[in-house]
């Protein structure tokens, strides 16, 4: 492989990686927000992503909505699902040991996966083509309009989230609850409401990722959330769990690493590479790339 074609390959893999990475980033954001606020690794988060994809499917096929309304429909529906899950499954466990609530999250994950299999059958479903994908060729680099769409929508959603967290009252309350829940309560913040809001926001981002993936790969199934859920979890840890920009960074890095490993080594090492990253991060920098090293007080 000469230099020119190598550079071209590299650039092409970078494009592939960024579009994959922005999906991971959207899911990782929800992980990180929920962890930040109630210190829970919400293992059901990947399944909320699946739920969002199915909601998008319902919106486009049964309700006949076009892409943007379907996206909003899926985000709202998943947001409500997130609130219900928090209310029913996690809130009663709020003062239980951490391990109990973690196991509850795994239970919720199974409930969503197999509940969906019961309702929608395990067969993959074809996502309707909501718009024609056109392919652009820039000097041999191939970019699909759907890849651009994924990137743009991810960026818009991330910008929106950053705005909500940093410049609104709800965002301020979220940061307060995340910093010190008891002190926040003493300042008159309704913690339950803020936690519900966090679940709603995180879930709707995952749902957006689900719809985008449905459009991009054209197929959805009830177990589609398992692997991306794990990858997004790694992305959140990589960036620094609980830190919002960290989740975005971690997601994009994961996507690029996977594309590069498949492109220049072997695709069979791709998943291994992701998990090696997790192990390395946990060994050498447990607080993640953007995290501050905080010594735990004993």
């Amino acid at each position, binding site marked *: *492989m000469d230099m020119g074609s190598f550079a071209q390959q590299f650039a092409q893999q970078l494009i*592939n990686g960024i579009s994959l990475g922005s999906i991971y980033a959207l899911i990782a954001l929800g992980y990180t927000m929920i962890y930040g606020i109630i210190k829970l690794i919400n293992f059901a988060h990947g399944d909320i992503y699946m739920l969002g994809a199915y909601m998008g499917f319902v919106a486009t096929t049964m309700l006949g909505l076009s892409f943007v309304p379907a996206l909003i429909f899926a985000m709202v529906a998943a947001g409500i699902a997130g609130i219900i899950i928090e209310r029913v499954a996690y809130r009663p466990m709020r003062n239980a040991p951490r391990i109990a609530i973690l196991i509850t999250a795994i239970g919720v994950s199974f409930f969503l996966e197999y509940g969906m299999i019961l309702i929608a059958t395990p067969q993959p479903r074809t996502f309707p083509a909501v718009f024609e994908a056109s*392919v652009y060729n820039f000097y041999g680099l191939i970019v699909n309009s759907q890849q651009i769409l994924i990137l743009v929508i991810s960026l818009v959603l991330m910008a929106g989230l950053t705005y909500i967290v940093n410049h609104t009252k709800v965002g301020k309350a979220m940061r307060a609850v995340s910093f010190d829940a008891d002190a926040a309560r003493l300042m008159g913040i309704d913690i339950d409401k803020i936690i519900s809001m966090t679940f709603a926001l995180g879930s709707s981002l995952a749902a957006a990722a689900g719809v985008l993936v449905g459009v991009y790969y054209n197929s959805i199934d009830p177990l589609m959330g398992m692997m991306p859920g794990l990858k997004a979890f790694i992305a959140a840890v990589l960036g620094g769990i609980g830190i919002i920009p960290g989740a975005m960074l971690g997601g994009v890095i994961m996507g690029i690493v996977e594309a590069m490993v498949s492109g220049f080594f072997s695709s069979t090492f791709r998943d291994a590479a992701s998990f090696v990253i997790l192990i390395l991060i946990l060994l050498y920098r447990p607080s993640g790339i953007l995290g501050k090293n905080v010594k735990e007080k004993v």
Partner: protein
Amino acid sequence: MKAWKKAVGLTCTAALMTAMLTGCGGTKKDAAKSDEVVIGAHFELTGGVANYGKSTLNGVQLAIDQVNAKGGVLGKKIKLVQGDNKSEPAEAGNIATKLITQDKAVVLIGPATSGCVSASIPIATANKVPLMAPVATAPSITVEKDGKVKPFIFRACFIDPFQGQVMAVFAEKTLKVKNVAILFDSSSEYSKGLTDVFTKTLEDNGGKVVAKEAFLAKDVDFKSTLTKIKASNPEAIYVPAYYEEVSKIIKQAREVGLSCPILGSDGWGSPKLAAIAGNEALNNTYFCSAYSSQDKEPTVQNFIKDYKAKYKTDPDNFSIHGYDAAMVVVEAIKRAGSTDGVKIAQELSKMKDFPVATGKFTVDANHNPVSGAVIIELKDGVQTFKEKITL
């Protein structure tokens, strides 16, 4: 008084005699009901691959109904006893035992998947009951590791290596391509087996594998791998895998600008393929199958007609193999002239040019059918008969 007693005694004796005679009329295994030949239909009727089992059973049932309508075999009706192994090999062993020992089946047809068949083989062999696997494709089903043929085990479909060879021949003879890239599922024995045979046949005939990449079942993103494959400039890509991943691979291959022919295996045969990949992306793709519904052969068309009349849906690969398997088994019982397992197995191994729905059925030395394969081209999402290849 005495006369009355005598009459009763006579009647009893007569009844006993009749019972014994009828007992003798049946076989030693089939002593329960002498007017029936019991065949065990052992399939995956629930569980993960229930649709394979059900489709195959439909074909078997159709064949048995037709035979019974013409008077059955050996002057008796055939009774098809169903057993459900729940798609689990462990359960398959139990069901095989039940069908043979309790239901007194003289032949077993099924199961569908190679794993469940393997679990049933020791039981069938120990009881000297022939087992006909209609759709199990693993080569090891009929032959021991040391190359010895298992005397009671037969199959009705082509084996995995065969379709790998067929596709390599098709690539070189019909498409006239030399440089082929392979993308296979490294988590599936089926995919790996086909890849090996395809590579060997292609290279023996002077072709070259320019890239060999792997993926895992359930993967959704193949763009990075396809970009890598594209850099090796293949004239065709061989993707021996199941439709769920294949459909995404084809869609994404076209998106990264790979316009060459894409070749595949019988795992492609599902309407979902076109639904996910899109009709346009599927143009210039070919796969190998045991039969095509567009095959003009009257046997195929008659089968399709009868099947539709009975089940109101189109038959698939599984159903036609199930049908053929049952027809061959019935013929073997007829030729054996008895329901003795050893004799039936002998007749099965001697089966030659027996007309069935897919063509002529001949059993080779390894108890596999000698058959051709059909190449199917996808034109605007529609499966179209391209050509028939016999090696």
